[in-house]
């Protein structure tokens, strides 16, 4: 499994947020993005998840056996600033929906809903509507979403926001488990995260105004 990005750049509005970002990642490695607020971490992750079209550059993912994956987005979980869970539905309903909507990708299988909730240590709130959870509980359940369906690549935008110290360590260990099974991590974070095989990438922020009009 191998992910290569070449010469990526991204616009937001008319501004060029970053350009010429290239990296190369093997299974089991983690790319950790750091940088000041507004330096473009989330933007880069959204580009990788296929949610923003980069004006230049390309991303390739190849499987262990050398085949080219058609699309990184399909092989990846994305956990953004927002949790992608419906406040009106119970936690269990939310997880069940994502489990069946995502399905598993080759190379692994998702955990059951009960197991996933147990892994983030929140089995006892499965029956509550998502809106009733506290901020940190919500974040943990959003993370449990990554566990119910298998994806080799995880794209995580500040996964540990709003978590207490114990929960932070818990999630970090879940991420390491994912890595040790050959998964890849791409994470943006402000707090140091204890991961394996970290490749750091510091975003510098704002590059230049777009040049089209010059």
């Amino acid at each position: 499994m191998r992910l290569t990005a070449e010469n990526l750049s991204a616009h937001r509005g008319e501004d060029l947020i970053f350009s010429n970002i290239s990296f190369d990642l093997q299974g089991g490695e983690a790319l950790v993005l750091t940088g000041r607020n507004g330096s473009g971490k989330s933007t880069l992750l959204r580009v990788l998840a296929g949610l923003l079209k980069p004006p230049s550059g390309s991303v390739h993912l190849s499987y262990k056996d050398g085949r080219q994956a058609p699309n990184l987005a399909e092989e990846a979980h994305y956990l953004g600033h927002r949790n992608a869970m419906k406040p009106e539905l119970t936690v269990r309903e939310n997880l069940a929906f994502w489990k069946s909507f995502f399905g598993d990708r080759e190379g692994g299988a998702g955990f059951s809903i009960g197991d996933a909730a147990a892994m983030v240590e929140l089995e006892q709130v499965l029956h509550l509507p998502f809106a009733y959870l506290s901020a940190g509980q919500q974040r943990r359940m959003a993370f449990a979403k990554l566990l119910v369906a298998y994806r080799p690549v995880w794209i995580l935008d500040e996964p540990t926001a709003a978590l207490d110290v114990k929960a932070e360590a818990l999630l970090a260990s879940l991420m390491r488990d994912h890595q040790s099974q050959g998964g890849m991590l791409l994470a943006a974070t402000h707090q140091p995260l204890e991961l394996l095989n970290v490749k750091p990438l510091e975003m510098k922020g704002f590059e230049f105004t777009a040049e089209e009009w010059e």
Partner: protein
Amino acid sequence: MTALLLRDLKLSVRAGGGALIGILFFLTVVAVIPFGVGPDLNLLSRIGPAIIWIGALLAALLGLDRLFQADRDDGSLDLLLMQEHPLVLTVLIKCLAHWLANVLPLVIASPLLGLFMNMNEVSIGAVMLTLLVGSPALAFIGAVGAAVAVSLPRGGLLVSILVLPLTIPVLIFGVSASYAAVQEPAPFLPPFLILTAITMFFAVIGPLGAALALRNGGD
């Protein structure tokens, strides 16, 4: 995909209280009308089909503009966009769920309302049939508007300009087919077939347009 359908159905049932709500809503709308036009039963039965169609339009529009917005606000939309189930299909399913939860109950309740409006059996049957065939088009048209609204932060105006004028043909053919069924000289089939064609046309164009808008508008 069924999961998506079920989730969307659950969401609209959970929050509002279910299919009953659609019927209740329609009932209230229809109950309001005679207060306006007066208790003239003859007149009521004449404007009945138009009123029922307008009620359906209103019910379809209420909440339609937020078809994708709720998903965007909580971040689900990103995840829906990332999956490679063809996006058109995803949009279609969402339209279907909206229609099933909000419009179908009205179609089912329409005979009851027809009775309230003093319409005769043929007329009631015709309205129900045209609603069944024509109202999905409203959902498909609305989906384009909803998708545009999501991708342009200030797309509000555009949505109304885009959606409401497009619904007028549906409404016109729906209503005129219902009348044709009762008033002798006018033939029922031509407007009805046109209505069917419109629905089928929008069933293709609507989700396509919506998917296009969603793909290009994300950020």
